[in-house]
């Protein structure tokens, strides 16, 4: 068996993982990255929009600064975030964007002079200043006070991913692809690496390290309908959670997007609705104007997703072999608009549906999009529970997103958090030595080898992994999706308990040799169902509505009882997660208030509690810059 050794082992080689690795390598430490796919195929590369950073270079970004970015982020999180982390993030983002420019990202730049832009279907003019020519420019995104989203045409994630991977090559970092971590090596207190399955040969290998960072992205694939890549299946969360001592933070915080196309759930941009597209039901009639007379299709992501789900529940969905959906209609926008302003949508319709959006309707449904939930870390990125274990990016609940993430903040987080946490890991490595216990390592390997053999031989049963997975995905879609209520969540928990039992009795149909995918699926099914149970149980307990977590039976945001973060542990041999809670933030720069959108009532927090934690800040308590 091969054993690899490094100072830092990074599991996941997307933007967060590679950024962490670069920081360690630049400081003279040996960093190794593992990835299921070649690094540039990471889901980071699929992000088209951009990265938020308050550079304030473009005309509509005039007057922007990290304080305003901080305010937007805290409001966006529905006061669910750690404000110290949001502050760290907003202050560092501009530096990281400039660093990326230095490393080679071809950011779009300010072009001086007059130009036009669209807002709500109306045309406006803007003037870019001569003195800002050639500086990094920005575009507009939902939920932000200023134009702040740095971008590279329609392929920001791809461009930044290329640059980051180039940087890894330059620094000589070993990035091993087709390697999947199947368990952490730990003694209950300290993490010393991972047991890894090679996806070329099927062999097990051991990667030992002084520090291990999990940067494996989100786990959208445990839902049936998700915009996530097929690799976003929770592998990193599962190996951390499996230790029994590392909690998942805010598992109930899952974001949904209204317009994933059916069947493949690829995202079509919010711009369709922004430019005047409408949503239609099975009778090809509009419905958003009934539920939201003022904003109709232009209400916020969660609101539109909610009403779409409601409308389908009323029997107005379109039946298809892939489940029910609704229609998005952009036919009336005309050929010119679709060919120019919505080119990407046109291409998606053409390539993946064979639909011409000029004459045909686009099948859409609300779709899982982002996991604010993740491996709970402190503000240094250090995971709760195990020394030497870190996490960054979407995999982590570092917690700058709280209960709702703003567009452009996820891609920015990967790199900004990767830099900050990478530097903290360097600090950790500088003052740290560890010993590798051969018994602990052997036991970890033997345990995985036994699991694999048992699955191949069907020792625990012969249930089909894909059927069990489908049952889990459907349970989440039914009870734990856009809308939640007590009855639905109780049913969901009950179903998932049955599913967990089945997950323990899975066996392979194929022989499992070599790069076998059924085995990969079978190895993580139990962990996936556990994650699903964490979501459902945490959502059942949280009797309020905050950000993306929406309880029909508790529509108000309850700061009095729920200004806290869920921690979901899974002790060894337990049948259900153990939930505990901690304060959302140790310090308030902005005391809890109204987000300014989404409506809803707030049950206020205890005044003394808030007053004691409120600190001196460049922003005032109304959430504006002083």
């Amino acid at each position, binding site marked *: 068996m091969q054993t690899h050794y490094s100072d830092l082992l990074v599991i996941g080689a997307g933007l967060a993982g590679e950024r962490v690795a670069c920081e360690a390598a630049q400081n003279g430490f040996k960093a190794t990255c593992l990835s299921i*796919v*070649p690094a*540039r*195929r*990471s*889901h980071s*590369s*699929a992000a088209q929009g951009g990265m938020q950073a308050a550079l304030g270079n473009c005309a509509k970004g005039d007057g922007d600064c990290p304080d305003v970015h901080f305010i937007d982020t805290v409001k966006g999180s529905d006061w669910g975030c750690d404000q110290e982390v949001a502050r760290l993030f907003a202050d560092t983002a501009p*530096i990281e*964007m*400039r*660093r990326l*420019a*230095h*490393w*080679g990202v*071809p*950011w*779009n*730049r300010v072009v001086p002079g007059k130009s036009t832009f669209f807002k709500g279907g109306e045309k406006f003019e803007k003037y870019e200043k001569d003195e800002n*020519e*050639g*500086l*990094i*420019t920005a575009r507009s995104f939902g939920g932000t006070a200023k134009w702040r989203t740095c971008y*590279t045409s329609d*392929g920001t994630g*791809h*461009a930044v991913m*290329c640059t980051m*991977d*180039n*940087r890894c*090559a*330059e620094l000589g970092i070993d990035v091993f*692809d*087709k390697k999947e971590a199947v368990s952490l090596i730990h003694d209950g207190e300290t993490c010393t690496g991972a047991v890894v399955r090679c*996806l*070329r040969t099927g062999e097990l290998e051991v990667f030992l390290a002084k520090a291990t960072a999990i940067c494996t992205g989100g786990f959208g694939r445990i839902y049936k309908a998700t915009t996530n*890549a*097929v*690799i976003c299946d929770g592998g990193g969360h599962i190996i951390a959670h499996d230790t029994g001592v590392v909690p998942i933070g805010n598992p109930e915080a899952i974001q949904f997007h209204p317009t994933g196309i059916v069947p*493949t759930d690829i995202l079509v941009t919010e711009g369709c609705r922004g430019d005047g597209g409408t949503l239609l039901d099975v009778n090809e009639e509009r419905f958003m104007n009934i539920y939201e007379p003022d904003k109709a299709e232009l209400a916020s992501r969660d609101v539109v997703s909610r009403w779409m789900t409601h409308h389908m529940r009323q029997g107005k969905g379109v039946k298809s*072999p*892939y489940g029910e959906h609704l229609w998005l209609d952009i036919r009336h926008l005309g050929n010119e608009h679709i060919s120019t302003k919505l080119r990407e949508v046109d291409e*998606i319709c053409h*390539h*993946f*549906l*064979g*639909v011409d959006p000029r004459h045909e309707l686009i*099948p859409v449904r609300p779709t899982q999009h982002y996991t604010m939930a993740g491996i709970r870390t402190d503000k240094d990125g250090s995971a709760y529970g195990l020394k030497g274990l870190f996490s960054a990016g979407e995999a982590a609940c570092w917690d700058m997103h709280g209960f709702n993430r703003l567009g452009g903040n996820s891609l920015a987080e990967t790199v900004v958090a990767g830099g900050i946490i990478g530097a903290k890991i360097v600090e950790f490595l500088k003052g740290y030595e560890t010993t590798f216990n051969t018994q602990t390592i052997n036991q970890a390997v033997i345990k995985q080898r036994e699991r694999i053999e048992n699955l191949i031989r069907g020792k625990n049963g012969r249930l089909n992994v894909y059927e069990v997975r489908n049952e889990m995905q459907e349970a989440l879609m039914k009870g734990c999706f856009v809308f939640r209520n007590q009855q639905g969540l109780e049913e969901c928990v009950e179903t998932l308990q049955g599913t967990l039992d089945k997950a323990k009795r899975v066996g*392979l*149909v*194929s*022989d499992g*040799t*070599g*790069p076998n995918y*059924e085995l990969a699926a079978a190895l993580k099914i139990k962990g996936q169902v556990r994650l699903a149970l964490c979501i459902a149980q945490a959502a059942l307990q949280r009797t309020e509505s905050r950000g993306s977590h929406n309880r029909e039976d508790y529509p108000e945001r309850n700061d009095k009882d729920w200004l806290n973060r869920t921690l979901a542990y899974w002790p060894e041999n337990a049948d259900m997660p153990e939930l505990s809670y901690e304060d959302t933030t140790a310090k308030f720069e902005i005391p809890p208030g109204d987000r300014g959108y989404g409506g809803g009532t707030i049950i206020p927090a205890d005044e003394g509690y808030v007053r004691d934690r409120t600190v001196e800040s460049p922003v005032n308590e109304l959430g504006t810059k002083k």
Partner: protein
Amino acid sequence: MGRQLEFEIFRFNPQKQGDVPRMQTYVLEETTNMTLFIALNRLREEQDPSLVFDFCCRAGICGACAMVINGRPGLACQTKTKDQPGKITLHPLPVFKLVGDLAVDTGVWFREMYDKTESWVHTSRTFDPAAQEERMDNAVAEQIYELERCIECGCCVSACGTARLREDFMGAAALNRIARFVVDPRDQRTDSDYFEIIGNDNGIFGCMGLLACEDVCPKGLPLQNQLGFLRRKMGITAIKEIFRK
């Protein structure tokens, strides 16, 4: 009821003792808007869990699912079954090392290419976190991005006559990569530096000009233009070198 699609799929698991390469036939009923992503996953989940193939983004962005579809390299995720005949033949990409069935090892090939082309901005400047960013012309930024759109799917390499004949040929993806740095003002390498890398039969002079690379590129990259651009530039560099001697 939809068509009964017949899939003829290349099978070989190099890790399995005694396994031999062969074609295997599967039948699947076509559904609305079916792509090869949907079809192959259904085959694996409902009929044959031993099938090996790669998908990642399934949205034409990452390049994981390139394979030879009815004789032509392309992305399986954006291939709709309704555009194909009732019988669909699938092979793995040639040139790259076979992982199993339809999956090939593009990762190692491309990583070696980064090392050969030194695929990063070469600069003596250091980053100053306190300073404003260096300015760049927006048109130049867009030009760089146009060349950086390569998703490393490997279609161009597997469709290349020279690459099929010679293992050491760098292929269109590598030449496109060099072009990306040539147009980037941040990269301080000179034309002679680039000539060292690609001014030989493994690089620009190995191309037979069959144009298949550009024909099959799912991103529509101007691969032949880049080759022409580099050949002219390198030709001039070569002549300058001769006269200097």
